């Protein structure tokens, strides 16, 4: 069910293409290539943020269900980011390698977008149960890269807008709130632990 919902953004534009054909799409949208480039970028960022919202949600609600959706949301973030990159590479720049290299080397917002995408790649690969088991504790550390990717993606967005930073700012604020919740939860955990360790019966229970 959620799977289908996650496909809606791409299905919407695919439907346009099927119903109206390439010609029709160019009549309806002034610049359809830019439109999908923007929409896929935006949805990649939204899914990435949703993915990162699952742990705070668990902390707030105390129930485990958000964690069950985390992997799927993360993979959709990766899916839309790949789509975004492919649209950029093949439809926008028409695979002109000189243009692509110039973009990557000279335009920080592209460099940083590519970095975000490359960071997401190992996360997508190691998202299976098998890899989780194999990596053990290291899996968690590795997947902290998702935060880095999200921050880079917001910076990518911030640097590419001409003047109106309101949209990237909104995403930056959401990210900040999500980080905030984790931080507070973590501090409480530490405080609880400290209390337990320093109280006399706690000390009894934890000799050494």
């Amino acid at each position: 069910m959620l799977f289908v919902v996650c496909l809606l953004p791409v299905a919407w534009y695919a439907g346009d293409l099927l119903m109206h054909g390439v010609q029709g799409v160019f009549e309806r949208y002034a610049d359809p290539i830019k439109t999908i480039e923007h929409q896929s970028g935006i949805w990649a960022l939204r899914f990435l943020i949703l993915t990162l919202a699952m742990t705070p949600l668990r902390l707030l609600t105390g129930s485990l269900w958000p964690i069950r959706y985390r992997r799927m949301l993360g993979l959709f973030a990766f899916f839309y980011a790949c789509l975004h990159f492919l649209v950029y590479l093949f439809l926008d720049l028409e695979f002109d390698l000189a243009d692509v290299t110039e973009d990557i080397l000279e335009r920080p917002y592209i460099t940083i977008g590519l970095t975000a995408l490359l960071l997401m790649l190992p996360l997508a690969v190691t998202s299976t149960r098998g890899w989780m088991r194999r990596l053990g504790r290291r899996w968690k550390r590795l997947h902290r890269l998702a935060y880095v990717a999200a921050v880079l993606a917001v910076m990518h967005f911030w640097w590419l807008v001409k003047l109106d930073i309101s949209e990237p700012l909104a995403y930056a604020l959401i990210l900040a709130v999500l980080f905030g919740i984790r931080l507070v939860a973590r501090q409480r955990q530490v405080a609880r632990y400290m209390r337990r360790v320093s109280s006399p019966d706690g000390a009894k229970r934890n000799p050494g």
Partner: protein
Amino acid sequence: MLIKRPDDIPASEITDPELYRQRRRFLQQGVAVAGAALTAGLWLPDSVEAGTRLANVKKSVWRVDEPLTPYRHVTGYNNFYEFGTSKAAPARYAPKTLKPRPWRVTIDGECEKPGRMDIDDLIRPHALEERIYRFRCVEAWSMVIPWVGIPLGAILRRFRPTSKAKYVRFETLLDPEQMPGQRTRLLRWPYVEGLRIDEAMHPLTILAVGLYGEVLPHQNGAPLRLVVPWKYGFKSIKSIVRISFVERMPRTSWNLAAPHEYGFYANVNPHVAHPRWSQRKERRIGEFRRRKTLMFNGYADQVAGLYKGMDLRRYY
């Protein structure tokens, strides 16, 4: 989760402009017939509404031999930050709030006959011409647009600029009621643009009052806008209320907002990149493949002489 409407509303959700214009014309003909019956010969203010056909428009030799960009994209996809920052915003909001009549224009500064006059008085002495120009946005998309207008030089000469008039400064209306985007502080309002006097007097530079043979739609800068076809689109200032002859180079809006990205000259130049995108190629709206951007947007034969000896990398 933040769910936003996509920036580009499918054009199909907007009233089909053909249908819209047919309705308009039908209404106007009705008004015209009724008006003529009652007050034969009286000037009808309705006849300057957006979408009305302009009479006696001369074809000019300045016509690009490339397919025209469809009307719905010319009028449905553009930048006009006074109405919002998305490309669909001008078409959505400008017709609701902008009032292009009555409209007064001030011409002042270094000239012998400054004045403030109604736009119709400003325009009336001149023949309207159709100019089919390429239009190249700094964001690397482009169009081909059949403007209707008057050479700017012909208008400016009426006010007898003095030898101190080295530049011409243009100003858009400042009125947040009519232009709600001016409540933000994205740009310094009112929008200001400028040209060197020789650029302003160049025969390719026009003041447009229409497109596609009709009165200029609100979202395209009604009732009066500049069109300088060899420069990036942001130079072609819209909804002008003031034209001033000045001695010093005016500070222009985009240049003030981001001086390293937008220069005063802003000539279309495939060899000088914008910091965030190359300018070598452009996507013509409606076309699948990009095309090469031409020096001075294809008008090099006519305008390259204006910049002889100038370092165009420095004066971007």
